[in-house]
């Protein structure tokens, strides 16, 4: 155990020596990897946020029913309550509707003061089981006095389309980033092995096993890509913070995922990507030099 710890310290010293041996190339590679990871982090953030918004809208599973003001809404309310899949029915007065919009608008609520009258109509708010949406909408629409049934299916569909595009785009970016990271890391390791071929030859002649000779190179690849992951995470943190403050300031009704949760996810993602792609890249780099030999 003692020897293993001592050897790990030796490997780290070797990593430092290897890094310094080709310092400028390694620094440039580090920043290239960081920006590659950053792009992927942004795509991941957009994907997670879109999915979160869709889930939020789905979880609300609510329809709004506008009716003829000359008809008593309680009779409509009673009929709606009898429909299968309806969980809760609320009558919302025009003043309540106005108050709700005030909450949505947040700091821009003064826009409502420009009106001399209350522009909002009373409506019936119905919470339903989402799987019965189509049937409920049909049945509610046929009730006498109901003028408009508004559900959020259109919004959901549009968001899902966006999410699909982001997912496809994200998969391509993920593949591209993975390949780019592996190629960059493999190239760095191959170059490191080439620059240290005399030392490697010496170790072989001294009877060093393969794992001992190549451990510093694998560690170099992993450390380099983990560092890139950390730099990418720091950039992602500030970018996400900026986007959140802008979005929540101007569009307060947008239900974004919790900032801390997203950040922790990005941190884990960047670290895992760094470790796994760094390891794979290093192995490929080593393998390619051994094959060439």
């Amino acid at each position, binding site marked *: 155990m003692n*020897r293993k710890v001592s050897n790990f310290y030796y490997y780290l010293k070797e990593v430092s020596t290897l890094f310094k041996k080709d310092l400028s190339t390694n620094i440039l590679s580090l920043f290239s990897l960081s920006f590659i990871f950053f792009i992927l982090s942004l795509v991941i953030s957009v994907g997670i946020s879109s999915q979160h918004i869709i889930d939020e809208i789905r979880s609300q599973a609510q329809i709004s029913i506008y009716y003829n003001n000359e008809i008593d809404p309680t009779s409509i309310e009673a009929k709606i309550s009898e429909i299968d899949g309806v969980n809760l029915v609320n009558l919302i007065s025009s003043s309540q509707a106005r108050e709700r919009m005030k909450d949505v608008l947040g700091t821009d609520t003064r826009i409502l003061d420009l009106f001399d009258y209350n522009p909002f109509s009373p409506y019936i708010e119905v919470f339903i089981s989402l799987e019965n949406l189509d049937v409920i909408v049909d049945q509610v629409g046929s009730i006498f006095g109901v003028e408009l049934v508004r559900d959020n299916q259109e919004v959901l569909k549009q968001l899902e389309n966006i999410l699909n595009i982001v997912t496809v785009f994200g998969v391509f970016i993920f593949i591209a980033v993975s390949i780019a990271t592996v190629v960059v890391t493999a190239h760095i390791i191959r170059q490191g092995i080439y620059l240290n071929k005399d030392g490697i030859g010496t170790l072989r002649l001294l009877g060093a*096993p393969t794992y001992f000779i190549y451990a510093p190179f694998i560690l170099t690849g992993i450390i380099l890509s983990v560092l890139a992951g950390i730099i990418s995470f720091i950039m992602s943190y500030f970018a996400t913070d900026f986007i959140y403050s802008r979005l929540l300031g101007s569009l307060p009704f947008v239900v974004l995922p919790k900032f801390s949760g997203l950040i922790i996810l990005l941190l884990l993602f960047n670290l895992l990507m760094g470790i796994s792609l760094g390891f794979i890249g290093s192995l490929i780099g080593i393998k390619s030099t051994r094959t060439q030999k």
Partner: protein
Amino acid sequence: MIIAQDLSLQYKDGTFGLKNVNITLPKGKLIFITGPSGSGKTSFVKLILGMEKLTSGNLSVLNYDMKNITERELVLLRQDIGPIFQDFKLLDGRSVCDNVLVGMRFLKIEKEDMYEKALKALEKVGLSHKVHSMVENLSYGERQRIAIARAVARDPKIIIADEPTGNLDKNNSLIVLDLLRSFQNEDTTIIITTHATHLIKDVKDSLHIDVEEGNLQYKEAKYE
């Protein structure tokens, strides 16, 4: 220890490095292999270290059959040999101590013992005051002594020094030869190749092998 039977080494261009060698190198002896440049001394060393593959015949080193040796066995064999190369093959950018330690890190030696052995070897070669110096800042002679310390620190069964006096004057050559002799014991064979026969003619308790046109023969026939 080392047994060669009809051993030949032929290079790709058709020339022979060694031809029909039959010789036995016993355990625990100081053995000089002499001969002019290009006679086959280094070829023999390369075969012992597994740096070249023999073309025909047989070669046994520490009971490993070099004709059919596997990669794993070669690693184990090399761990029992302390090589001292003509160009030293030190690792630049590392300290003197790191260069000696690197030959032991993958052996089954505990950390404390490893450091103790390294410091002892450096003391023996007179470099205990330069433990933390970087090797590239040292003189030729000092670099050679680090290579010797690296070879002996791990208590090998065979120490092989290829032309250790090659670039040294007479005085320094004798110092290096004396130093190498000091590591000989009943368990450790020391093989030294040199073309400077005048330096070794008076060395006592040693065996001398002549290499001529790829053939090795004892000057005295007792080990034939």
